């Protein structure tokens, strides 16, 4: 069922993740879920901010409908990204889903205080991962009404 569309087009997802393995698993997860999504990937917070602001090599990139954000990353971590995004009037409406391996209460609480849209712990095996991506897609791309996002 590759026909679920967001605003009349495939959903644009930005995956902010420093682990190649997790990028691959996420990609496979979306593939398994059979959603027509365009998955963009950046490896840290700094690149994420450049992507969102369409700076440099990200000049022609679309504004994502949803951001999947890892917390522990080099240079600029997920918390800093959320802080930065919330300060930016042009970006603060973007839904951010935290996707991390940390189950620490401290991380969970801090993420919600920084107004993440939801907090997901990476499942320990691929079956779990695939199920999670499936549910995530169902929720965000069929149930939820996302903010308007006119692509150039």
């Amino acid at each position, binding site marked *: 069922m590759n026909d679920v569309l967001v605003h009349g087009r495939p959903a644009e997802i930005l995956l902010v993740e420093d682990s190649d*393995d997790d990028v691959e698993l996420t990609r496979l997860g979306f593939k398994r879920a059979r959603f027509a999504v365009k998955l963009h990937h950046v490896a840290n917070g700094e690149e994420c901010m450049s992507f969102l602001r369409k700076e440099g090599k990200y000049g022609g990139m679309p504004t994502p409908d949803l951001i999947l954000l890892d917390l522990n990353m080099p240079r600029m971590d997920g918390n800093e990204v959320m802080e930065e995004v919330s300060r930016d009037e042009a970006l603060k409406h973007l839904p951010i889903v935290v996707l991390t*391996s*940390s189950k*620490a*209460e401290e991380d969970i609480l801090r993420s919600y205080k920084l107004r993440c849209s939801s907090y997901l712990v990476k499942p320990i*095996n*691929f079956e779990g991962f695939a199920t999670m991506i499936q549910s995530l897609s169902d929720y965000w791309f069929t149930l939820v009404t996302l903010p308007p996002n006119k692509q150039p």
Partner: protein
Amino acid sequence: MDDVARELRLYRRLFVLVGAVYLVWWFAVEAAMPQAFNPLPGRLVVVLAIWGIGATSYASAWVRSHVQLLWACALWLVTAHYFYLFYENAGEINWRVGSFITVTAISLGLFSRASLVSYSVFTVVLGLVMVLAFPELRRTVFLPGLVTVLLQANVGLHSRLGVIRDLAASNEHFQLLFNSTFEGVLIHEEGRIVQVNDSLISALGFTAAELVGRDVRDFVHPDDRARAEGTLMSETASCEARGRRKDGTVRDFEIRGKPLPRSTRPTRLLTIADITERNLQAEALRQSNEALERSNIDLQRFAYVASHDLQTPLRSIGSFVDLLHSTYAEQLDDQGRDWLSRTSKSVHHLRTLIDDLLAYSRVDAEPRAFERVSVREVLDRATSLLDVAIRESSAQITSGELPEVMGDRSQLVQLMLNLVGNALKYRGAAAPVIHVAAETKGDEWQVSIRDNGIGIAPKHHQQVFEIFKRLHDLKEYPGTGIGLAVCRRVVNRHGGKIWVESNAGEGSVFYFTLAKEQ
């Protein structure tokens, strides 16, 4: 030392005086009654001998230390010589009386102070009787008089010197005691030092002369004077203060002070102990404790981070093995699928191990404030987490009355989960029957978890709480050997104890204690 010198000076005067009086007396008698007594050289020998004792006391230490004995001998010599001359010139009666008194005089030099008194009385009476009974000897009225005077002088001297000597002895004891105390002792009147002991002198490096008369506050470090004021000047108290030694080094002292009961000016006693070494040791101990604590925290953080970071690659391995299995299993032969399944199992075991290790390190790494926790709720939470295992094993879990305790809720759930989980896991042939109960023991609650499982041989009762300690191989009972170590850690953090009572094949009872109030 003063008193001994004074005593010696007194004796020297007596020697001079007695010799002089004796000589003057004989010349006076001779002038009054020419040719009454003879001869002159004997008198001179006696007098010179007496003066000689006095003179040699300056040169000879033996004479100085035996001056009292020599005094008695001198008395005897004078008396004996007197009677010798008397006898030579006055006939038989006087000879008898003279010999008697001579013997008496000898005795006087040898007898104790107490008997001296009775002897002097006796001598006076005898002299009077002699004068009355033999009127022709009237001129010898001087004889008992002289003897009596000499004896009285001797007795008086003895008693006075005795007092002085007793005083000296007691003073010596006091000085010995005063100077031998380990602590420095100081007595001051309104701040002005009046007496110090040797320990204080060596503690401060100043001489007694440099200390006495100075204000005690001058020796306290200026920064500590305000703090030490009370102890030094008014209160019965103690304090620590720095003080400067004569060589300029600053040391730590413990000062204790109290007032001395004296009617005149306010006098205070201070004891002063150098505690620099003690403070240095305490500081070293504190530092090594701190280092230990730091390394302990580092170790916990290491365990936490390590187990956390180990999960990330493990998740990748597990996930890709899953993917391999689900996507390519068909294309592998049995051997290949077996290897994949073995890999999968190992990943699962490693994951459990890391999770348990994480739980173990979390007990201390993530401390939360204690709150009032119902053991009943803790048990309910644990059994709901174990729901599947309970249903699969048809276990029967009952409980008695359970209290509320102060503790960390999630850690207590972990504790109960591990203990009840073990009771389910290590079951025998029959369905598990588990009973959780609590009873009060002094100011603690003792919680017990009783099961009908395979039990534990007594020799393993201690070991089972050690981390990584397992009694079974993985095929029999899977596990990591961390569960009970976590339990012990949780109970320890709550200030309680955990132990097991069991025999192989007879079920086990695990006990742990929790304080009623924190």
